[in-house]
């Protein structure tokens, strides 16, 4: 089996790869976005804490 044949998926390449691609994007976003939000919330709370300490 060569790679071109593998990616062609017996003529169903565009269906198979768009399905796997969509799933991969949704799964990766589900890790990246919550991690980013967690960092943002941490940062925000740190700034709030600093403001409180100054008061």
């Amino acid at each position: 089996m060569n790679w071109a044949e593998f990616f062609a998926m017996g003529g169903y390449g565009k269906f198979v790869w768009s399905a796997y691609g969509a799933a991969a994007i949704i799964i990766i976003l589900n890790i990246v976005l919550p991690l980013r939000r967690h960092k943002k919330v941490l940062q925000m709370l740190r700034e709030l804490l600093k403001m409180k300490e100054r008061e």
Partner: protein
Amino acid sequence: MNITKYAAPVVFYPLAGKLIPWFAWATAITLAVGLIMGLFIAPTDYQQGESYRIMFIHVPSAWMSMLVYVVMATAGAVALAWKTRLSEMLATACAPVGASFTLIALITGSIWGKPMWGTYWVWDARLTSELVLLFLYLGFMALQASIDDPRRAARAAAILALVGVINIPIIHFSVEWWNTLHQPASVSKISAPSIHPSMLWPLLINAAGFHLFFATAVLIRMRTEVLIRERHKSWIADIIGTKP
């Protein structure tokens, strides 16, 4: 050992922080094995050719879309009954992850439907009830976002989740109760599966990978929930002052 002590946010937060990298690595390794087996090793289907390989992500994500809903509704019920904060946060964290699994099941199913059925979409019982599931998740999230007081928001959303549980058996049995384009289950808990082991293994390994991914994603979201909901507690100040 008293397991309820882990339900205290102050205990849960650092513990989850330690667990997340392990779950993330286990997810990556499991899904890599499942992908290699599903895309390279599993043989070509004699009826559907290579297009059937979409099944290896479609079926596990459809299973997870229902499982996550049951987890979410159960956590909501526990929160309603015992007013436990961590179960409220679990329900909240489940919703976007469950919606994502539902979306994956709908998208991959739709793409698979085009070459096999000749259409991306039909309004039949299985597809429609799965779409209703997506709207239940979105409704849960919208309802919770629309109420300012987090405890009242969690209670209202939990009631919505519980009412929506009725949709789960409808999805499951839809292929038996109604005439549909969708094929009935190939893997059943009661009888032997009607698919060959060479195709069953990548399916089950991907399903395991999706469970691990669910754990990873939910733990990350729950930690953020803990930070937001417990921000006035003194232990939060201790944690954010020192650790990332």
